[in-house]
């Protein structure tokens, strides 16, 4: 990087999305070298087919959950119960469909979807009530439903896996529309809705304000209780949609395993995307990138054949690197140490670039 390029590149280098994009690109690049035909996208049975499509398709539930989580985290909260809501919503919808006379009846499936989503919103609102109405710390308030919710899901499924055979329901998580996986279309719709509510309308400003300084927001006349209720309910809704998607994808509801630990992946996606756990500023685009990074990592592990015994270690390594690169404090330290003594030396920039490459592929 020459001296004349620096000022031009600075806005790019300072952009908070830079590192997530670099990491995602690095992961994809890894696949380019190790996996044959990873970037091949073909038409099969009238829809798109390929690894890249898989990443988005399997990542769709995580993206949805992470979007809801982003708003919750922006209010300086956290929602641990999303995994349980995923299980409950899928379980309830599948239970309803399994008891339909005609599982392919569109009306019946729509009712099932409405029931699942309705209950999810209600559970989210319950979280919101505990946090905003009673004033319990978010991590404790949502822990209640995280633990109890699994029990509720098991209660609905009676501890069994409910299998359904309904083509309209199958569409949600496993179907295609206009050659695209339907899940992707849902994600785009929810993302657009979220962006509209927060950035077009003023919900985002109020969320960031409540998360940045709750007392100051109250004194500015913001109804923070209402904002919090809405955010938690929305998070419940997102988890509910994800739950339908996951159960629809395998045409069955598994109260024990559906959405297990998805809350942790979602929190990770939000953090990788550059939203601080301390609340305030949030980035929807960053969260989508974060979720895609996590899913790409998972798919990469499957396709390059990392042995199962070492997958967790491999994941941990990559996530550590990602988090370090996302931390301004670390970057400051890592890059400043080299910049200071070598301020005059023109080799410093190249050195930096070299280290990055080593860091990511480690």
């Amino acid at each position: 990087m020459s001296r004349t390029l620096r000022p031009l590149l600075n806005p790019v280098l300072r952009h908070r999305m830079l590192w997530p994009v670099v990491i995602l690109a690095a992961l994809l690049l890894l696949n380019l070298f190790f996996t044959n035909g990873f970037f091949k996208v073909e038409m099969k049975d009238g829809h798109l087919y390929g690894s890249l499509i898989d990443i988005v398709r399997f990542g769709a539930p995580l993206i949805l959950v992470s979007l809801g989580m982003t708003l919750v985290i922006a209010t300086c909260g956290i929602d641990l119960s999303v995994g349980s809501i995923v299980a409950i919503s899928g379980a309830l919808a599948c239970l309803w469909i399994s008891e339909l006379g005609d599982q392919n009846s569109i009306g019946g499936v729509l009712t099932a979807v409405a029931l699942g989503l309705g209950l999810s919103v209600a559970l989210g609102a319950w979280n919101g009530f505990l946090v905003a109405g009673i004033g319990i710390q978010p991590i404790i308030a949502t822990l209640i439903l995280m633990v109890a919710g699994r029990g509720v899901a098991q209660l609905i499924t009676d501890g069994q896996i409910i299998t359904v055979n309904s083509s309209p329901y199958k569409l949600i998580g496993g179907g295609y529309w206009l050659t695209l996986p339907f899940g992707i279309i849902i994600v785009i719709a929810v993302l657009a809705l979220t962006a509209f509510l927060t950035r077009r309308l003023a919900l985002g400003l109020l969320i960031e304000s409540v998360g940045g300084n709750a007392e100051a927001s109250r004194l500015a006349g913001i109804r923070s209780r209402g904002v919090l209720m809405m955010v938690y309910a929305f998070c419940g809704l997102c988890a509910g949609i994800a739950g339908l998607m996951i159960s629809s994808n395998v045409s069955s509801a598994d109260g024990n395993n559906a959405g297990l630990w998805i809350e942790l992946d979602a929190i990770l996606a939000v953090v990788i995307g550059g939203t601080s756990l301390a609340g305030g500023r949030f980035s929807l685009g960053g969260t989508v990138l974060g979720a895609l990074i996590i899913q790409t990592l998972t798919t990469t592990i499957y396709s390059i054949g990392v042995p199962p015994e070492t997958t967790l270690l491999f994941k941990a390594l990559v996530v550590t690197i990602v988090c370090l690169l996302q931390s301004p404090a670390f970057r400051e330290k890592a890059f400043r140490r080299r910049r200071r003594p070598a301020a005059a030396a023109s080799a410093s920039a190249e050195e930096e670039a070299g280290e990055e490459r080593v860091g990511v592929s480690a």
Partner: protein
Amino acid sequence: MTAPAPILRMTGIGKQFPGVKALDGVDFRLLPGEVHALMGENGAGKSTLIKVLTGVYDIDAGEIELAGRKVAFAGPQAAQRAGISTVYQEVNLCTNLSVAENIFIGREPRRLGRIQWRRMRQRAAELLARLEIDIDVSAPLSSYSLAIQQMVAIARALDIEARVLILDEPTSSLDAGEVAQLFRVMRRLKEQGIAILFVSHFLDQIYEISDRMTILRNGRLVGEHLTSELSQIELVGKMIGRELADLERLGAKPAAESSESSAGKPVPLLEARELGRTGAIEPFTLTIHEGEVVGLAGLLGSGRTEIARLLFGADHAGTGSLRIGGEQVSLRTPRAAVSRKIAFCSENRRAEGLIPDLTVRENIILALQAARGWTRPIPRRRQDELVDKYIKALSIRPPDPDQLVKNLSGGNQQKVLLARWLILEPRLLILDEPTRGIDVGAKAEIQRLVAELSDGGMAVLFISAELEEVLRLSHRVGVLRDRRLVAQLENGDDLTTDTLTETIASGARS
């Protein structure tokens, strides 16, 4: 005065922030055994210079020498180890920890890895005794007043073997007695050869304690002078870079004609009858008319802020009734007050006012947006109009609506907070210590603004610890003592700071 070699020398310091040149070629030196005042308006670069010196920021240009050796501190700890200790403007302590823990946090006396609690408490008590403070050091810091907390912060800085002590606005929340106490300590430290860098907006204090001063304006050095050789008027002129006519014009009291007009108003804007809240403020009765400025005077903790909070609905009133525009109301939330066109600038702008991570624009439109509800966003063009108008009107610096508020200086933050409420066009504006911790120029601007607003028909409840300021602006002054509104005095020629002080001291109802 034959100057000894400076302990600290900064040459050609430059520091750039995105969109702001905070420091530009500034030279500064500090001699051992002197109290050196760093002067300048808000945004002149005082805080940045201090942060550069203590390693919080890197410098873009220039160099720093400590005791003749070139240094570059990686952070505040490194600066502290080298003997540069700092007490910041806003107290940066952990209020949930005990006093002793606060003093020794991060360097607790240990033996075999275990903290020696008894020794720690003992030494904390000794240190505070040096500042002539006798308190229970094992009690949590939050149980003491801001003033005591400030002293604890100083004690913490003193414990480290300091060669340079930086006091950034240490006196802004101290009363006269406490200031005198602090100055005694400062003089003792001076005799021990410690160099003290002192920042304060109280000119009287500067002239009482400092030996020399360095003046900054807009990130540049204006000059270095012996305090004894520069008059106050000259100093202020150098700081704001213009003549003082504006300031002096404000000196005239607004009282006489306005008090007549307020008496003529049939329905008062606000009427509080026996309004009170247990443990906060005894029941009080207060009326405020349109276009009237009512000042509240009293010591720290006398109940001034509590009155403001009740009138704004920030706290619930336990007793009494409140009428606004003749209508009986019960303010259960700030939102209810806002919808009745009441606005409140809290004294604690960091905790209760601004959202530091949001931009100037977002902070300014926040209250208006909250009042409209999230479904009715303010169109971008309207936002730009409003924000630009108030950035200009209040001369907020830097005039960049997309700058994060946390990057602004204290006075400019205060103006942003004011702008937030002014765009709501309130009928009653409650200002709690709006001029605390901000410089002469900004102070004058805010005072002038208050006068203009009240001329335009807005009612203002003005709370300040500075009696001169209260007298200068108010038509009527309420005096508080021990959580009671003890007197309401019409501001006439016979009302002086002395009579106010007397009333505060005696608590007599007149």
